[in-house]
């Protein structure tokens, strides 16, 4: 009897532990090789854009925390506040801007730590998960001392930040950075040379420079493909133009490159926070903005560099108390598209490595 083979249709998700949320991939397999991937998203669609149309500008800050990417609440808040400030012509005091930069970078570290830990688990490195969350826990304590929240902060306000940092917080923050930096080296020792890790990531999930541009990839995914582009450098917002930092770039475009880029980004974030803490000016941290603010008619598009890529906020005002339309340009949305498009041809086990390396948060993809 001749051997009969046929293609296998496999549903990965929506509740698969390695999909980092509720993502369903309909994978067509020929043996172990992937011949087609059809992603199905929308399970976490909360219609936050619609909700924002029904709440006032001030209330919407609370929505950006949870409706969008929940791991980078402060970066979301920053994007939204920057957009509304540009719309209403609000000038943020110096201290407020520096505090915002410090917290955005701390959140970048926290987000990358979650990514590294969970990706480690995907690839079988359980130790890494515990270590990353150990460091992140200390960082969340820092957040809690200032914002009162560990994940959802609602700390940034239109015109600045809610409250000043308590006495002694800057010292605690420096202590944390001091404690954290050697741990990045430990991750390198643990993973970078590890033959199992290398075999699973090096040369896997390659996305070329041209493809990355055409498919709208941004952030670490684009930088791992050789695109030296960072919104913080290209169109500086807040006070990023005064702080020195490098944009890590890798040329190979595989999972390993994305890993190296993110580890280096954490190091650069530490550098930025140290400078910002040193330069932190005294004085006001918040401009006076009425609770029932009504920005003049108009529209604005603001781009920021979130840990996952270019996070854009397109806000249209019709002169009323709530925005007429908010469009969130979610970085994960385009990154997920780019990576699922190039999954064809890899092995089934590589899906886990590739998906993990995009660092998606489904709440950001679906919004």
């Amino acid at each position, binding site marked *: 009897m001749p051997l009969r083979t046929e293609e296998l249709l496999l549903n990965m998700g929506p509740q698969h532990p390695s999909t980092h949320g509720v993502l369903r991939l309909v994978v067509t397999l020929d043996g172990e090789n992937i011949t087609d991937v059809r992603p199905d998203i929308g399970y976490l669609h909360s219609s936050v854009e619609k909700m924002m149309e029904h*709440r006032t500008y*001030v*209330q*919407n*800050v*609370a*929505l950006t*925390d*949870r409706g969008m990417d929940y791991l980078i609440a402060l970066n979301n808040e920053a994007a939204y506040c920057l957009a509304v400030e540009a719309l209403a012509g609000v000038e943020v005091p110096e201290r407020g801007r520096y505090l915002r930069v410090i917290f955005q970078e701390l959140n970048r570290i926290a987000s990358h730590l979650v990514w590294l830990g969970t990706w480690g688990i995907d690839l079988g490195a359980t*130790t890494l998960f515990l*270590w990353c969350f*150990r460091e992140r*826990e200390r960082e969340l*304590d820092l957040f*809690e*001392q*200032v*914002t*009162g*929240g560990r994940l*959802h902060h*609602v700390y940034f306000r239109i015109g600045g930040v*809610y*409250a*000043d940092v*308590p*006495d002694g917080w800057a010292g605690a923050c420096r202590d944390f950075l001091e404690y954290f930096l050697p741990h990045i080296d*430990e991750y390198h*020792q*643990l*993973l970078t*040379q*590890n*033959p199992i890790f290398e075999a699973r990531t090096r040369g896997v999930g390659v996305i070329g420079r041209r493809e990355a541009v055409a498919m709208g990839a941004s952030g670490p995914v684009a930088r791992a493909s050789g695109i030296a582009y960072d919104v913080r450098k290209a169109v500086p917002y807040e006070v990023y133009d005064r702080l020195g930092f490098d944009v890590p770039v890798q040329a190979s475009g595989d999972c390993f490159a994305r890993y190296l880029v993110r580890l280096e980004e954490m190091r650069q974030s530490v550098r930025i926070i140290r400078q910002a803490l040193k330069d932190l000016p005294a004085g006001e941290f918040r401009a*006076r*903005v*009425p*609770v029932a603010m009504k920005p003049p008619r108009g529209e604005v598009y603001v781009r920021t560099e979130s840990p996952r890529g270019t996070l854009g906020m397109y806000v249209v005002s019709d002169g009323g108390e709530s925005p007429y339309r908010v469009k969130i340009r979610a970085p994960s949305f385009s990154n997920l598209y780019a990576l699922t498009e190039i999954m064809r041809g890899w092995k089934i086990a590589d899906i886990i490595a590739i998906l993990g390396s995009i660092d998606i948060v489904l709440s950001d993809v679906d919004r």
Partner: protein
Amino acid sequence: MSAAERVIRGAAALGTGLGLTFRTMLRRKVTVRYPVEKLPTSHRFHGLLSLPIDPETGKDRCIICFQCERICPDRCIHIEAEGKGKERQLSRFDIEMDKCCYCGLCVEVCPTEAIVFVPHYETSTYNRARLLYSHDDLNRAAPKEPIATGIVARRRP
């Protein structure tokens, strides 16, 4: 790279990693046995909402301005008042804690600091009805002593 080289390199890398893991095992432990041990929360922690009682008047400081009700993004605060002028009294101050998103906007807008956060986080229950906090519940949830959050009250714009 030859096969032998690869084996040696891989073994060396594995050795480094495992050595590191072993050394970490000898470091101080950071885990906490949660229900038995608890980590301290910060003074600004967003836990339960409460209406502390002013020891001078024996009542809470709410002046029934409805600001918190209006700012709440989830519309989970419900206030009703009776009477006119100086006689005005709260007849209802309910917070639906299951809807609350702990954003703290109500605490921020309150002109008299009548509504504050308490660093208490174990509020889960099997019955949703228990998460509707009435005026008395909110008074009872208040801390005995005021908590020094270090947040300077917002000045009116």
